[in-house]
């Protein structure tokens, strides 16, 4: 990339006090908020205008989802610790915690797969009713975000050494940003869980 042309990749611009990447990720998250915001709004509209709407817990597997919630939250924690150990210049710890984060991601997806296949077996499909439909589209899209976050984290896991030699600051910045995204994905789930499974 024509990096020699572009300032403020690693250090903050004095008058804004921010790096390019930081503003970028916040803009991206803003649009993500609008995305999921629109989903939640649609959910409310559909639910209020529907004649009957099943009670989530009567169809979905609450225990599994609870486990998943715990998994995601812990993954956020390890994400923070990975970044922290990077700040403390501890590469091995960083790789350990980031590895854990990615692994938790796999856990989450694994459990989701179990849930999905159970639904399919019981013939519960998007065409069954709008509750199932919105369940699949919202959790499905959230799942895609999880995969996206995992890919990014995996990249920073394996590319870490080379970064480590060239530009530690850059690595730290980028890990911080991917962390922000990961926390967002986590946060979305914190909202999805109650509205789909509990309410």
């Amino acid at each position, binding site marked *: 990339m024509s990096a*020699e*042309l*572009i*300032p*403020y990749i690693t250090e903050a611009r004095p008058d804004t006090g921010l790096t390019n990447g930081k503003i970028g990720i916040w803009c991206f998250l803003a*649009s993500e908020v*609008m995305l999921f915001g629109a989903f939640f709004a649609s959910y409310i509209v559909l639910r209020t205008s529907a004649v009957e709407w099943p009670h989530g817990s009567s169809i979905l597997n609450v225990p599994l989802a609870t486990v998943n919630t715990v998994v995601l939250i812990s993954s956020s924690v390890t994400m923070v610790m990975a970044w922290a150990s990077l700040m403390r210049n501890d590469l091995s710890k960083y790789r350990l915690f980031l590895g854990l984060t990615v692994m938790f991601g796999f856990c989450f997806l694994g459990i989701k797969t179990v849930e999905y296949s159970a639904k399919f077996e019981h013939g519960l*499909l998007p065409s069954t009713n709008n509750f199932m439909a919105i369940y699949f589209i919202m959790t499905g899209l959230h799942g895609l975000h999880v995969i996206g976050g995992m890919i990014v984290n995996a990249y920073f896991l394996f590319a870490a050494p080379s970064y480590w030699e060239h530009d530690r600051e850059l690595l730290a910045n980028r890990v911080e940003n991917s962390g922000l995204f990961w926390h967002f994905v986590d946060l979305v789930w914190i909202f999805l869980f109650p509205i789909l499974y509990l309410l």
Partner: protein
Amino acid sequence: MEARHESPAHKHAADHGHGHAHHEPGFLEKYIFSTDHKTIGLQYAVTALFFLMFGFTLMMMMRWQLAYPGVPMPLIGGLLGEARMPGGVMTPDFYNELGAMHGTIMVFLGVVPLGVGGFGNYVLPLQIGAKDMAFPRLNMISYQFFFVGGVMMMATFFMPGGAAQSGWTSYPPLSDINPGQTGWIVSMIFIITSSLLGAINFIVTTIQLRTKGMSFWRFPFFVWAQFVTSFLLLLAFPPLEVGAFLQLMDRVAGSSFFLPSGLVVSGQILPVAGGGNPLLWQHLFWFLAHPEVYVLILPAMGIVAEVLTNNTRKPLWGYTAMVYSIIFLGFMSFIVWAHHMFMTGMGSGIAAFFQTTTMIISVPSVVILAALFLSLWGGSIRFTTPMLFALAFLPMFGIGGLTGLPLGLTSSDIQLHDTYYVIGHFHYVVAPGTVMAFFAGLYYWFPKATGRKMSETLGKAHFWLTFICMNGVFMPMFWLGLAGVSRRLYDGGASYAHAQHVLWLNGVSSWSAWIMGAAQLLFIFNFFWSMRRGEKVDRNPWNATTLEWEAPSPPPHGNFVKDVVVYRGPYDYSPRGYSSDFRPQAQEA
């Protein structure tokens, strides 16, 4: 500051020494997979111009059916196959395909990519003194998303179901049951993604890559316009993306987000679960599509401001007021969307709210337009080709905007909703308005991109023909609309009693459109001819003040030979007691 400004970049380059500058880029890297904002800008511009022309061509075909319903179309009538045009007469389905695609192409593949992707990408970094966009590779990727989306959109014409035929608004249930819609949705998802990535890039670039001395209040108005536009794209598009996902589910996964219970289509009960809500789509769509229409106009306003000041040789009148207005416009555009839904059975409370916000949002536009008008006063006006187009924009946008008022009041909208009056209204803003402004921009920045000027003679001929024909096309629509002729009518209203006495106006529109189509050949010729043969010019042929004219024409990779520093506001024309009639932003005090 200068030192700090440079250090990270150098350090970084040193760190991993594999930047562009280090080896000669090959053809692919230079033209296809370039990360240079100028190349990408040109890619956007040319692709978008092609789409504009294509969308226009579709409409010229529709205009035949509107003017001469049922009469076989000469020449091309036979070429499009019996399926679409049996005996040279287009089928209603094909008419609807053309209509939906015209709207979609013009808005999402023509005007937005040209205004934001083209002009924005090329000019904005230059105007703020940046060497490139903040995320060059992301920039390339967003073009590629746009390109793929566009190609897919074209491809839908040749898919089994044909292209989408439910209007660019794609209202369900129709869009859920009509053929051709799936391809439209998938292409839209690509185009939306492209816009989102682009918007992020613009915002970061504008905030971070301003050169030394380029404070926000020294931005050329064009930069402000692009900056606000980016926020609209960033925040308004996601809801449409949601709508697209939901509609995709309805079509491929058999869900019924937009399908209420108990639908009976042509005597058969529709086999779906039901329980959905058709209006949900309209809210998701218009929540995007109203901000979107300001995305169509703001870059145009920016261009006009640049060309106008340069050719009146005087500062922009009321720059500050214009900036505040455009920001306010941006905010307001998020809370007026339901004025497109007045006739869906709105209670008096909600209707009162949305028509009030709609009246409020017209005020900043009035302020901006008035400021542009007043900027003329006291000027020394040069009637160059870009200036002619920029001047034409003012009354044209004025007419389009003014006709928005009766639409914005629920009670007068009753008679006008979904008639040709609406078509007239928004075309006056987007076609004689935005398209004319874009022509101004093309003629104005052409020398910067090619080092040559376009022919003034051809340009002026192109202007007058386009200007007259534009009005010939759209002015009659107001009468059609007031007479109550509905839009999207395959026969232009020929079967309705209340339309009989105005049907002849369809002929006027059509002939104007075809003549205007022919007139565009002047432009296309001028465009390509001037690339090779046009008059050679130096870096600042228009004696302009803004930074893009500090760079050589065409600017090299990295734009400026040496870092530019800004010492004053954007439009310091004819300063008192100064040797020349313009003082560039980068001119030391």
